[in-house]
């Protein structure tokens, strides 16, 4: 196992260490100058779990676990351009915390969303911050942080159509997905 990891480390290091500038990137991804020549050869390098762990996360709960059927929680709603949880919304988070206390094998993925106004990229960050704020509440309530992941859709996945204030209100939200 250890040896295997070392081999993979060396492999990744070799891929990453070649060349400089834009050519580095091309070589990293095995692309020739025109993006064709040696593409096939190097993209065969498996992007497996350990390589992923080396370069980034090991995958979200949505990729690595199964959703728990029949368990759902109400979304937490937010004010315009805000990631503060209003006092009236806190009880929703406490219900999720209680469920996680009682079901030790369950984990939760919090999806942060925004209304459509404003910059798409800023909304991605705002949605993430909303999800992170909810995550902070769960951790403060005693839930192990490793059991709570966040994911932002920004303004890409509205719950309600249209451009009314009511639609905007329903779209500024954090949703809970429970996995095992």
């Amino acid at each position, binding site marked *: 196992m250890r040896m295997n990891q070392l081999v993979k480390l060396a492999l*990744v290091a070799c891929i*990453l*260490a070649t060349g*400089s*500038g*834009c*050519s*580095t*990137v*091309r070589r*990293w*991804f095995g*692309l020739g100058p*025109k*993006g064709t020549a040696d*593409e096939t050869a190097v*993209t065969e390098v498996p*992007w497996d779990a350990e390589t*992923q762990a*080396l*370069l*980034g*996360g090991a*995958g*979200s709960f*949505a*990729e690595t676990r199964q959703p728990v059927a029949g368990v759902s929680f109400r979304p937490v709603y937010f004010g315009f*351009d805000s*990631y503060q949880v209003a006092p009236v919304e806190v009880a929703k988070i406490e219900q999720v915390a209680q469920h996680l206390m009682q079901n030790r094998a369950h984990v939760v993925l919090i999806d942060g969303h925004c209304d459509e106004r*404003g*910059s*798409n*990229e*800023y909304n*991605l*960050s*705002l949605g*993430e*911050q909303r999800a*992170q704020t909810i995550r902070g509440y769960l951790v403060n309530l005693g839930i192990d942080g490793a059991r709570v*992941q*966040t*994911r*932002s*859709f*920004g303004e*890409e*996945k*509205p719950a309600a*159509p*249209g*451009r009314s204030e009511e639609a905007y209100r329903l779209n500024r939200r954090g949703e809970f997905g429970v996995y095992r």
Partner: protein
Amino acid sequence: MKRIARVLAVVGAALAARGADITVRGEGTGKDAVSLSGLAVSGESGRLFAQTLQSDLQRSGWFRIDPAGQIQVAGSAAARPDGLAVAARVSWPGKRFDWNRSSGVGVPDVRRLAHQLADEMVRHIKGERGIASTRVVFVNRRGPNNADLFVCDADGSGLAQITQDAMAAVGPKWDCDGLHILYTGYLRGSPAVYRFPATGGRRMPLAKFNGLNAGAEVSPDGRTVALILSVTGNPEVHTLDLSSGATVRLTHTPHAVEASPAWSPDGTRIVYVSDAAGAPHLYCLDVRTKRSRRLTYKGSENVNPDWAPNGRIAYATLRAGSYQIAVLDPDAGGEPDGTLTSGPDHEDPSWAPDSRHIVCSRAEGPGRSSLWILDTGGDSPVRLFSHSGNWMSPDWSDK
């Protein structure tokens, strides 16, 4: 000679038929007159070449077409069985250059050849960077979690879909090689930064840490990516070294949101959006010292910064209820009172490599927006292409 006149009449009619697409304000003022009368064209591809060249020269902002112009393009663009052969001499008082090229018969090949000559003329005659050969990447959003990426040439032709995912896609940016695209996609369910050839093809993840991976832009030297990661707890500006894979966090604002990092032309600074002051505004950070300084105070929001090669920053500013495009000089200090645009929302500006033109999106109504080219040199805005839809987040290639 008669044949040339006929061809030019056809070209003129074709251009006139495109209507507002080529409207140029201030015709004549400050522009150099180019005569294409001496260019003999033959065949369909010869005519396409001349038409594309004329359009490119006008769109460059530096030239107007005038049969009596002192800048003369002479020679031939002749269709042959195996393609188009161009033998041209471009002359203007005291100077000239010869340009002999050939291409395949395909429409994209012929257009590319015309783009190359137009860029050579801008370079030789004006000493400026031409943009006819550059391209634009953007998002087409069809509905909730239903979008794909498209590219087209700088003149709006050659529109092509380069992803077929029908899922959220955010913030496409050209790599500095002009051949690859970086963007935030959801191929594995969570937002990750992917890189892939602009011709389409396999997406490779560049950053897929837990939480948010977004807003990636490659540094001018191609070695580093600036991006937003939340792996340390909340969205912050980071750099990712493409050789070592190492990440560095450049901002530390546990109670604020960062977004949209964009590199300075020399790669020493990054302009980005932060709501540290309560609403999104622009900040500039020194990559080496990690020190940030606030750039904008006017307007209720300032977002989507993009740094031009000549040092100016274009951005979208929310003033009196609508987003408009503005330009500031971070080194001179101060913010503009005026905006380049007015009326409906204009967002997501991206500079062309000539530091003169800007492509941005413009709201057309519920769920619809179009892409426009603005000219900071004074010409009227030009719509990139006329297909209706929800087109957004354009990024202009460096090459």
